[in-house]
Structures are given as C-alpha cells and as structure tokens.
C-alpha cells in the first residue's frame, strides 16, 4: 500500500492540477453566486407579487432537483435546442445557478428574521431605498446568514465533484485518471479525500469564526 501511495504521489502534478482546478472553480462559483444571490434575494422580497412569485418558483425548482440532473440538462439538453456551450461554461454556470438558488433562499430567510425596528431606525436617520439596504440591512443579513452560507459553501465543494462527468479536470477527475493508469483506486481516492477534507475543514474553520462574529455583531 505504501508503495502504491508513492506511485500516486509521484503523479503529483496531475493531482495538483485537479486540486487547483477544484479550488478556483469553487471560489469563483461561490463569489459569483453570492453576488447573484444578493440581487435575487431583493426580487424574493419584492413588493410586486408577480416578480416575487416567479423568482420564488425558479429558486424552488432549482433547489428541488439534484445537481447532477441540472448538469445533464445544461450539458445534454441545451444542444437539442441549438444552444451550444463549452463544457467549462456548462459546468460553471450550472454550479453557479444551482448555488445561487440556495444562497438567495438563505438570504431571504435571514432578511425575514431581521427585526423591523432596524430598518425603521435606518429610515429615521435618513436612509432610504438602496442606501438603506446597503448600509443597514445587507450587512446584518450577511452577518446573520454567514454560518449557513458557509455550510452551503461546503455543499458546493462536494457538488463540484460531479463536474468530472462532463470531463472537467477537477480533483475527482484527476484522481480517477491516476487510479486508472496504475490501477491503484484505494490510494488515489485516499489522496483525493484528504485534499477535499482540507478544503472543507478550512471552510468549517471560517464558519466557526463567522459564528463568533454573529454572536458579537448580530442582532439580538
């Protein structure tokens, strides 16, 4: 087993490429879906009931389907209606849209728990519209939702492994390459698992930090 492990580690450039790909795919998807989710959450609490209902329906559908299914739909079904995207575009946009739905729903939930008095104090001190949202509401929502957003981020990392089925060279894909060349499945997967664990436990550590922040700077 030790010898096999050395064989696997000998292929470190492959594994490093996969690891780095997984890292930037997740980081980029995480950041972009958070930005999108902030806008989508505004639609989810919109005063116009049509806007609110349509957005909520889309969010609910996205959250109801398995990520792998969404990936297949984007990758295999879009060409059927003559939309052709590269596998990278397919993979990233599926990951981003899927995650945006979850993030947006988390932000909407945090907003409904924000005490009404907070917005009122903002208005009493001259805030209105987008300024009120940006300076008073959004920071409090992000602090309150931080730990939950972090947990969703861990789910995103794990969902990103599905991208290998459309041959995106992420960590799972590369580990699979290595094991199929030398036929050392256990050792190759062990290394991949260790690297996933590294990513997820760093996020976990950040989540705990955000818990601390929410304790001091969250609303009572």
């Amino acid at each position, binding site marked *: 087993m030790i010898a096999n492990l050395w064989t696997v580690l000998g292929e470190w450039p492959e594994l490093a490429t996969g690891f780095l790909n997984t890292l930037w795919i997740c980081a980029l998807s995480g950041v972009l879906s958070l930005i999108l989710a902030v806008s989508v959450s505004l639609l989810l609490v919109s005063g116009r009931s049509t806007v609110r209902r349509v957005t909520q329906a889309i969010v609910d559908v996205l959250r109801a389907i398995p990520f792998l299914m969404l990936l297949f739909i984007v990758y295999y079904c879009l060409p059927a209606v003559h939309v052709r995207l590269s596998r990278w575009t397919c993979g990233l946009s599926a990951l981003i849209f899927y995650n945006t739905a979850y993030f947006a729903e988390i932000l909407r939930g945090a907003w409904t728990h924000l005490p009404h008095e907070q917005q009122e104090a903002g208005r009493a001190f001259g*805030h209105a519209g987008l300024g009120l949202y940006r300076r008073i509401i959004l920071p409090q929502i992000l602090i309150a939702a931080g730990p939950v957003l972090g947990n969703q981020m861990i789910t995103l990392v794990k969902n990103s492994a599905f991208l290998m089925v459309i041959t995106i060279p992420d960590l799972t894909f590369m580990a699979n390459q290595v094991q199929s060349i030398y036929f050392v499945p256990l050792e190759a997967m062990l290394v991949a698992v260790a690297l996933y664990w590294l990513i997820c436990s760093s996020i976990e550590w950040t989540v705990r930090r955000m818990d601390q922040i929410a304790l001091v700077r969250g609303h009572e």
Partner: protein
Amino acid sequence: MSESSNPGRPVVEVRDLSKSFGLLRVLRGVNLSVSSGRTLCVLGPSGSGKSTLLRCINFLERPDEGAVFLRGERVGVSRSTSGHERPMTDRELARMRTRFGMVFQQFNLWPHLTVLGNLVESPIYVQHRSRDEVMREAEALLEKIGLSDKRDAYPSRLSGGQKQRVAIARALAMKPEVLLFDEPTSSLDPELVGEVLSVMRNLAREGQTMIVVTHEMGFAREAADEVMFIDEGAVVETAAPDRFFGNPATPRVRQFLQRFA
C-alpha cells in the same frame, strides 16, 4: 428658559393631526408647538397615542389628516413651483428626517456597527459631511456622555443605559433641529434610568429643542418647559410644569397624577 426668551416661529408645529389604524382612532386632532430651545414633555396613560404622535411628527407613520411643520416647512408634503401639492417621495422624506433626531424606547442601535460607527453612519453616508469633522464631533459627543472608552465596542457589549446614551449621541451627531424621545427609559432597569435622564437633563439645560414622550414625572417636572397630557388620542391639557403638577386644570389630569402621588 422663560417664555419671552424665544419669540418667533416654532421649531415644530403640529396642526389637527389625526391617525387611525383600521377602525381604531389613535390620534384625534392633536395640536402642539415647540419653540427653539424648549422641552415639551408628553404624558399620558399607555395606549393614549403618545408614541404614534411622535412617529407622525417625523412621518415614520403617515398621518391621515393634519399637518406637521418643521421651522415652517411642511413635513411629508412637497409643493411644486406651480403650487401643486403632492406627498413627498421616500427619498425626500428621508432627507427631511435627518433634521429630526430620534431616540427609541428599544434603542435600536445598529448591532453590526461599533459605537463610533453608529454615531457617524448618518452624518457620513446620509448627510455626506466631511469624515474628519464628523469623527471629531462624534468623539466629543462620546466624551460628553462619558463613553469614550466604548468607542470601538459593539452595542451587544453595552448595558441598557449605555445603549440609550449612545442612541442619544447618535441622534445628536446629525445636528438635528429637534430631538424626539419615545419613552427613552421605559425598557431600562430602574437603576439605569438615572444615567439616561441626567444626559437628557443636560441637553434641556443647554437649550436643545426636545419633545419627550415619557412616564418619568420627576423629569417632566424638572426639565420640561411645558407638559402636555394626552388621553385617547386627544390633548387634555397643556401647561407649564409648575401649574401642571401643582394645580392641574382638568379632573382627568388630577386623577392621573394622584396615582403617582
């Protein structure tokens, strides 16, 4: 603070203000007027409409009827050059609200900002005043309320009395023309009431124009220039504190005061 020291136009004037929530008539034709540098205390039993009156003055609630004037300018209604009247937009109202400082019963400090952050938020991001100047003034205000050592603390780390003192400083930082207090001591532990009242007493002495909705009879007697009693949404009596507490004109006020004697 004699009657004659402040002639001229009142800072706040309320005319025939009425407000209903559904079928409940909370305010019925309230009139009041506060001149510059004076303190008006509004007393009355719970549910008499005191807080709603205060919230109608800066249009956190839109009154159904009547008018509010801030130094002669109509609050909540703008007039075009052709003389046509229309309700103010949210943005216009927001700008006007910065001229009222408000202190809430539940403090409502912003928990994500430090004490100093709470003070400078509106002056910097709403009034767009110079950051350096605002910071200097905020530090001076903290000094004045005795909380300089808490400037970088978050509100969750403060006692109720400290929170309310910070909330008063936050209102003062906007340099408002009038301060509105909505039962500022009602959610404080009894031993913390004193520190808040002493800050308010100093403000009254310094000539800050204030409207204070309160249950603190002692404060009203000492610090008010005028006391107004509201019951069931209508003004029952308005008088100087000596007369109000010493020789009230109406049986309703006499009956109310007896419970505190």
